[in-house]
């Protein structure tokens, strides 16, 4: 059952990367590279599923397994909520050795009941993990039974860690929504301007940089899947008229299936970068108008986009004197790198290189064209090599994720987090301005001059300067 699902998910016809592959490559699937023992890094499928679903803020997210899966990581993500905080609590069956010997199904049922009685959530998501999968706990059956007896949706999320990567887990999370959640509640207020946003988790509150733009156009977000969402919003997502699909690799299957099942067309878009934001807004407006929304919406969208772009560029320009000529190295899989590159180049920064690890071939071409002579694209740089580059001053700032944070800091090079754990929101027009503002703050911090001062003594500790009082 799970195996079938995994195969299907890893051969997604809607995925551009997959489309570019040969038949043999396709058959192998996209997550099937095989992990190299002793040289692997990355989260498991459970991790991915949790990332995709946990931002449903009013639900209980219960992890069925021994402690490690939840105990080491709960409340460590920056998915923001405008109200409920229940999703931020850690819930786990914390299985003991005895539980494992006897099977964990009974305990799981009791845990579900305890959570239901104590917190009265609108729904409980139950996550399968490696050990409980290995001992054969039938999480789906327990959830079905609990749902019936307790009278609330209890949703099994079958993405045990060892099934594959974080990315696979994202997709399996989407499948759980398709199988058990979306379409289970009929909204009373469906309107012609309702949309879904797929693959936005409201990290650092980025959804709140997008929502005001949509508000001004009179577009309502019926469901954000799943950033800052409530369970019933997701459950009634099937009544949206169109969708924006962000973070393409993770949510493409969900988007495609929602189109097939409920005829919700989607645009693949991004809210990182000025041009991207405009394209995405125009794209979704066009879909709405195609489906019968007031055509006037198109004109209003054009006006909004023009105004916002003008404003954003004007604000970005003010940073140019402080940033022009400075060299940046981009190392990220998440944020679409070329859209950041274009903004940096616009204010006169030099981008010496950008990673294209997780980009589609089209993205890669775009990045190459943008970088021109001075920059290069690459897949991966080993830490030691990156350390050397930074130490040698080949870049003035590294924009990357947490994994390479200390490569930059230990080489005393400015660093800015542009991945998942970031604390600043970089989406939409305001987000791009914020990104550049942060680059300015980090890069021009006087602390760099101080921390780069060499020791005032030699290798043996003898002072390098003669006493000034003689």
């Amino acid at each position: 059952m799970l195996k079938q699902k995994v195969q299907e998910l890893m051969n997604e016809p809607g995925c551009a990367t997959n489309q570019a592959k040969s038949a043999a490559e396709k058959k192998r699937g996209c997550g099937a590279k095989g992990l190299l023992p002793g040289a692997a890094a990355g989260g498991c499928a459970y991790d991915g599923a949790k990332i995709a679903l946990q931002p449903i803020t009013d639900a209980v997210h219960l992890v069925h397994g021994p402690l490690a899966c939840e105990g080491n990581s709960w409340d460590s993500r920056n998915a923001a909520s405008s109200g409920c905080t229940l999703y931020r609590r850690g819930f786990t069956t914390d299985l003991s050795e005895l539980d494992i010997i006897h099977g964990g199904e009974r305990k799981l049922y009791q845990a579900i009941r305890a959570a239901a009685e104590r917190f009265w959530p609108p729904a409980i998501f139950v996550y399968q993990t490696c050990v409980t999968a290995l001992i054969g706990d039938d999480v789906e059956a327990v959830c079905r039974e609990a749902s019936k007896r307790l009278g609330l949706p209890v949703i099994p999320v079958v993405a045990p860690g060892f099934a594959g990567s974080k990315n696979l887990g994202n997709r399996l999370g989407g499948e759980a929504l398709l199988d058990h959640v979306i379409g289970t509640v009929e909204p009373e207020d469906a309107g012609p301007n309702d949309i879904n946003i797929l693959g936005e988790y409201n990290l650092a509150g980025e959804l709140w940089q997008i929502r005001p733009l949509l508000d001004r156009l009179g577009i309502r977000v019926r469901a954000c899947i799943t950033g800052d969402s409530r369970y019933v919003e997701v459950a009634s997502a099937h009544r949206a008229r169109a969708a924006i699909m962000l973070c393409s690799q993770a949510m493409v299957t969900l988007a495609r299936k929602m189109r097939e099942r409920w005829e919700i067309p989607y645009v693949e878009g991004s809210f990182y970068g000025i041009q991207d934001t405009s394209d995405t807004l125009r794209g979704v407006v066009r879909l709405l108008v195609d489906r019968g929304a007031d055509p006037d919406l198109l004109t209003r969208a054009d006006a909004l986009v023009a105004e916002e772009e003008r404003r954003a560029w004007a604000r970005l320009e003010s940073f140019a004197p402080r940033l022009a000529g400075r060299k940046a190295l981009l190392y990220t899989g998440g944020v679409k790198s070329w859209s950041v590159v274009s903004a940096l180049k616009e204010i006169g920064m030099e981008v010496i290189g950008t990673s294209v690890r997780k980009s589609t071939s089209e993205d890669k071409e775009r990045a190459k064209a943008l970088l021109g002579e001075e920059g290069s694209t690459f897949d991966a740089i080993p830490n030691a090599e990156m350390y050397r580059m930074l130490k040698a001053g080949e870049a003035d700032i590294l924009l990357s994720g947490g994994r390479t944070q200390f490569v930059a800091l230990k080489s005393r090079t400015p660093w800015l987090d542009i991945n998942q754990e970031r604390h600043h929101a970089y989406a939409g027009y305001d987000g791009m301005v914020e990104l550049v503002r942060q680059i300015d703050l980090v890069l021009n911090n006087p602390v760099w001059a101080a921390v780069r001062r060499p020791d005032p003594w030699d290798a043996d500790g003898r002072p390098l300067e003669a006493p000034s009082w003689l």
Partner: protein
Amino acid sequence: MALIVSLPKPLSVSPLKISAPLGGALAFMGLDGCLPLFHGAQGCTAFALVALVRHFREAIPLQTTAMDEITTILGGMDNVEQALLNITRRANPKVIGLLSTALTETRGEDMEGDLRVILGRNSELAGVAVVPATTPDYDGSLETGWSKAVEAMIRWLPQGPQVPQAEQVNILPGSHLTPGDIEELRAIVEDFGLEPVILPDLSGALDGHLPSGWVSTTLGGTSLERVGRMARSPLTIAIGEHMRGPAEVLRWRTGVPVLVLDRIIGLDPVDRLMVALANVSGRPVPLRYQRQRSQLIDAMLDGQFAFAGRRIALAGEPDLLWSMGRLVSEMGARVVAATTTAAAPFLAEFPAERVIVGDLDDLDEQITEAGGCDLLIANSNATQLAARRGLALFRVGFPVFDRLGVAQRASAGYRGTRDLIFTLAGALADAGSHLVTEHRHEHAQATAG
């Protein structure tokens, strides 16, 4: 005297426990040139890695045997072998700490047996010391994993000849000591003219220093060569009850006598440390510490007003709970709520009515039953609880990811204890009183009436 309450419950809400393999990995960070390796699926390693990075703000070497569904069923020996070979080729470590996880233990792998076979048939691995430790996630918590890992180091790392060396002492610090504590401890021991062999020594690798190049193993920490000289010491000092086991194994292997200090925060335990060091070294207690002792006593005299009668809620691993709980109660505060991760028998002596083995939700309930408290002492996971209750949170233990410097705070010794008393007194002063006293209550009623 406390009643230890350990009720089985199906649902853990806001867990306090940290997994045992993470504790084990942390211990291996205290060996030089080491790379810990989880034998399990990759996600466990990723979570532990993120947690360690967030706490220490350092690059953390940690690898995985990357078990998947199929290898889990077929058995993981090939994965262990491949991982050891890959790590050796890429990172060239001196030690690899091989830690089992719930997944491989549930399947019932014979990791040690497999390892013997692997080492026997791969000459490439001859130059690396591989230390296997059994640390399933379903058994115990961070302290458990730490102590099992140290025990495994003592069992598996080679010991040199037993040439007695009077000027040396073994120190086995528990996981509740920060790199800052260990640095302080080292200075104290050295001031007695003794050379400490600290196992494991986090102050080398995780003290936040700048290396001169990039390495993918630990940099700093105790070298294998020094570990091999432990048999020569006249004494092993273990700090924390969870280090008694490893210390006893060391005694059994080498004959070195053991002194277990329950903690090194507080006047009485530091006195015992000083006396032990003076006896081992045959030297008087250095003047500096005589002076620090009187400074600490003065701080206790000044600080008692801030502590007296204040109500503290405390959560942490057994030895951390013990250290903090004893200190605040010795200063006159009352521990009104205490939650820990394991039913450690020595906690029967803990200065509270009850110690609950449970999670932060249990702590929350205890606070309610106690009618509130003034200050919460726990790790960063208690932030939500503190916010909901409007309580001040004094952060200790692991993980602390929202305050700089806690991972390095030095509270050991007379000077460390003094500083901790000052900091806690400040926190208590800021906290105000959250207890609706009977008097105030009556007062309010009188006004209303």
